[in-house]
Every structure is written in structure tokens, then in C-alpha cells.
């Protein structure tokens, strides 16, 4: 896959880190503002998609990235399940129960386990979207050969 022109490359270098930080902001403030795991994960995937679009890459390197992102997605969804089952053993006997202290209203560390769920769902969504994008690219490269 070829890259794009020099203007797009320079703007990508300037903006990709800022876009990644904004995605993390959306995820960690998911219980205070709109957004949350899914929207933030889509923005984080956007930062990586921007890099691949602007600079281009060859097929072998893309296949390596796809293995890593697929593994990350499986691990993240496993940790979300583990957090849900953990409530079952800590004495509350209900799935998805809140077993952490609730904290102060309006602060960033509050709302118990909901920020933890948000963070891992964000990682899972980002890895899944990158995997779908890479699968489409590799399919097209193979079909044109």
C-alpha cells in the first residue's frame, strides 16, 4: 500500500499523538461526560488508521500488526469477564456488582468499578476496529496480485 503526499504526512506526525490523548480523555472521563468506552476506542483506532493511511506499509509488516491486535482484543475482553466474575467471589453474589468504594461525586476516581470496565472496553473496541481495517487491506492486496 502506497503512502500519500508530503503535506498529509507532516500533518499526521503533528496530530496523531494529540488524537490518541483525546481518546484517552474520552475513556477516563466516561462516567462524568458523554462518551465512554466505545467512543474513545473508536478515536484511538482512528489515530492508528491515520498513521497507516499516510505512511503506507508492505503486506508482511501488516500481517504482524494484525496478529498483535487480534491477541490484544482477546485479552481485553477476557479481563472484562474476569472483573465481572470477581464480584461473585467477593461476597456480593451478583454479577456486575460494585465492590469498590464509591468516592467523591464529580471526581475522576469515583463510581466504583465503572471506570475499570470503561478502560478495558476501550482497549477491546480499538483493537477490534484496527483488526477489521487490516483484514480489509490484506484482502485487497492479495486480490490484486
Amino acid at each position: 500500500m502506497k503512502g500519500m503526499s508530503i503535506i498529509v504526512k507532516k500533518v499526521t506526525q503533528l496530530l496523531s499523538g494529540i488524537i490518541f490523548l483525546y481518546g484517552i480523555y474520552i475513556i477516563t472521563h466516561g462516567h462524568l461526560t458523554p462518551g465512554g468506552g466505545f467512543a474513545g476506542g473508536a478515536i484511538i483506532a482512528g489515530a492508528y488508521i491515520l498513521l497507516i493511511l499516510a505512511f503506507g506499509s508492505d503486506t508482511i509488516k501488516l500481517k504482524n500488526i494484525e496478529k498483535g491486535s487480534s491477541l490484544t482484543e482477546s485479552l481485553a475482553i477476557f479481563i472484562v469477564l474476569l472483573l465481572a466474575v470477581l464480584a461473585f467471589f467477593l461476597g456480593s453474589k451478583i454479577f456486575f456488582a460494585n465492590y469498590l468504594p464509591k468516592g467523591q461525586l464529580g471526581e475522576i476516581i469515583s463510581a466504583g468499578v465503572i471506570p475499570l470496565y470503561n478502560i478495558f472496553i476501550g482497549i477491546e473496541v480499538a483493537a477490534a476496529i484496527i483488526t477489521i481495517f487490516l483484514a480489509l487491506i490484506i484482502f485487497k492486496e492479495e486480490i490484486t496480485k
Partner: protein
Amino acid sequence: MEIISFILICIGILFNLLGCIGLIRLPDVYNRLQSATKCVTLGTCSILLGVLFHFGFNEAGIKAIIAIPLLFFGATVAAHALVKGAYLFGIKLGDKSVKDDYKDVEKS
């Protein structure tokens, strides 16, 4: 402050209106992109400045400041990529055009 922000928002919507009329009237892709990108980007920047004057320097005003450079880089680079893509796709320049230096260059 209220009056200044109201005037800025009015100016922004006027520019947006001009850009959209250009999007309807002009003849081919390149000219439409000329009119629409410039007018609509400047109009939206003006609306965001109006929001900044309305709220002052608190958390809402700061977000309006952050949005302005992002919008500037995003809109201009998107317009550049669309022009180059449309040329490589094979769309000809309009009937009124007088000069084309890009025709016989080796494109990358």
C-alpha cells in the same frame, strides 16, 4: 460580551450561507471545493469564537479554543487530499478553464 458573541455568530452563519450557495451554483468539482472549504471553515471558526466570548475562560471556553486549530488543519488537509484524489481519478477540469500545468507531470 453577549452582544459581541451574538454578532460573531451572525457573521459565521452568513459565511456558511455563502459557502453553501457556492456549493450549489459553481460548475465543476474543483470550483465547488474552492468556495465551500474556505467559507464554511472560516464561518465555523467564527461561531466557535462567539462561544468563547459567551462563556469566558472556563472549561467550555477552553474547549472552543482547542477546537479551532484542529478544525483548521483538518479542513485544509482534507480539501487538499480530495483535490488530488479527484484529479488522479480522472475528472477533467471544467469547460471555462484556461491553463493546466499538472497534466504532463509524473505523478507519484
